[in-house]
């Protein structure tokens, strides 16, 4: 008995392994596609096109102003009503995570771009670069460095919040921990291991981002 119950681990570790795989893949696609949609949303919000700006602003406000749980159920029950093909549970859960994360990423990126001094854009334009070249070579690389901590934080939040997809029956870490709770009648130990796994994932990610951040800051040191 006790927390490090070897018998328990030997018997049920597969639940945790599979759960970790599901959590990691949902988070991975959530981060990658959430960032892509987020970049588009942030550029829409920064553009001079009123329609693009309005759509993006409305979307971001709606997503930030409603609970992820509600969004998840809307996607889970709502999307199949309008889609001509069937999507698996896990696909629907991932879509909900992507749509949610995109709004937060968009705001982080927008803030990052706005934080770059206006003179940088002017200098690039004065050399003859187009707006998009200036964004690509000058603004976005600097913005990316500035927003990396905030972006890392958002990714960590996403991994943790992804536990909510267990309510629509996706077999992630949280769902499997719950299952084991039912099987073994022991509430504490499965949840303890679930927490430990989430922590290992987020802690590793946070360390990796720390390394990346230090590399990118190489040019900032004073002599």
């Amino acid at each position: 008995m006790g927390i490090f119950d070897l018998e328990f681990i030997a018997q049920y570790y597969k639940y945790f392994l599979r759960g970790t795989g599901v959590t990691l893949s949902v988070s991975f696609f959530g981060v990658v596609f959430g960032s892509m949609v987020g970049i588009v949303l942030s550029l829409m919000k920064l553009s001079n096109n009123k329609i693009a700006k309005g759509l993006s602003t409305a979307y971001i406000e709606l997503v930030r102003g409603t609970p992820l749980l509600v969004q998840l159920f809307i996607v889970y029950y709502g999307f199949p009503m309008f889609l001509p093909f069937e999507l698996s549970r896990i696909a629907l859960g991932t879509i909900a995570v992507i749509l949610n994360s995109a709004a937060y990423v968009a705001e982080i990126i927008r803030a990052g771009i706005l934080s770059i001094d206006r003179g940088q854009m002017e200098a690039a334009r004065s050399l003859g670069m187009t707006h998009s070249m200036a964004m690509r070579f000058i603004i976005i690389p600097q913005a990316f460095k500035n927003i990396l901590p905030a972006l890392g934080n958002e990714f960590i939040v996403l991994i943790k919040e992804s536990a909510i997809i267990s309510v629509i029956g996706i077999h992630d870490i949280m769902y499997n921990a719950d299952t084991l709770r039912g099987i073994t009648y022991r509430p504490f130990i499965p949840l303890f291991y679930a927490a430990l796994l989430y922590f290992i994932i987020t802690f590793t990610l946070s360390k990796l981002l720390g390394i990346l951040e230090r590399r990118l800051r190489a040019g900032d040191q004073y002599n």
Partner: protein
Amino acid sequence: MINIINLNKKFGELHVLKDINQTIEEGEVVVVIGPSGSGKSTFLRCLNLLEEPTSGEIIFEGVLITDKNNDVNKQREKMGMVFQQFNLFPHKTVLENITLAPIQLKGLTREEADKIATTLLKRIGLEEKANTYPNQLSGGQKQRIAIIRALAMEPDVMLFDEPTSSLDPEMVGEVLEVMKELAREGMTMVVVTHEMGFAKEVGSRVLFMDEGRIMEEGNPHELFTNPQNPRTQDFLRKILI
């Protein structure tokens, strides 16, 4: 080289430039002076359309650059600009700062661009700084790099927007020296500055601006020793004490 016809600029209700007409000839060094808020920086920034004129026309080397269908990026390659705040790209090395635009815009290879950059760096005595980042440089060094970054595009005219105003006093000289050398080589220059010594030494014409108008213009010697307009007299009295 640059014709400015009835140039007006408004920021909302604020009328910053009022019916400016000017012609800048090839090889001229035009120095623009005036009190703060007189519109001199805005005037300069209108020349390469960093500020979009509210009305009026600007013709550069025969091209009406204020025309809606004109792609100003091509002309900007020929109009170098130097800013008060240097605006070097902090995430790029000195060499990359200089070579980025020639490589991307003129299609130079990295070797060709590096060669041009190295020649320019030698000229200002900073070739050993090629691989450092802007943060490691002094203000004077940054501004000299900013000047040669613009020169690397081989511009026909150089625009200077208060290039020495944010420098520590002991670094003003090294930047002015580079600018003077450029002027002596025959570069066409438009310089917004408070450095009267520079205007006297290499300026071919001085424009005195106040309240969005060019109040007086003339050669530096005449304008400084015998200003006609009472506002010019007042301004010069204040700054020459």
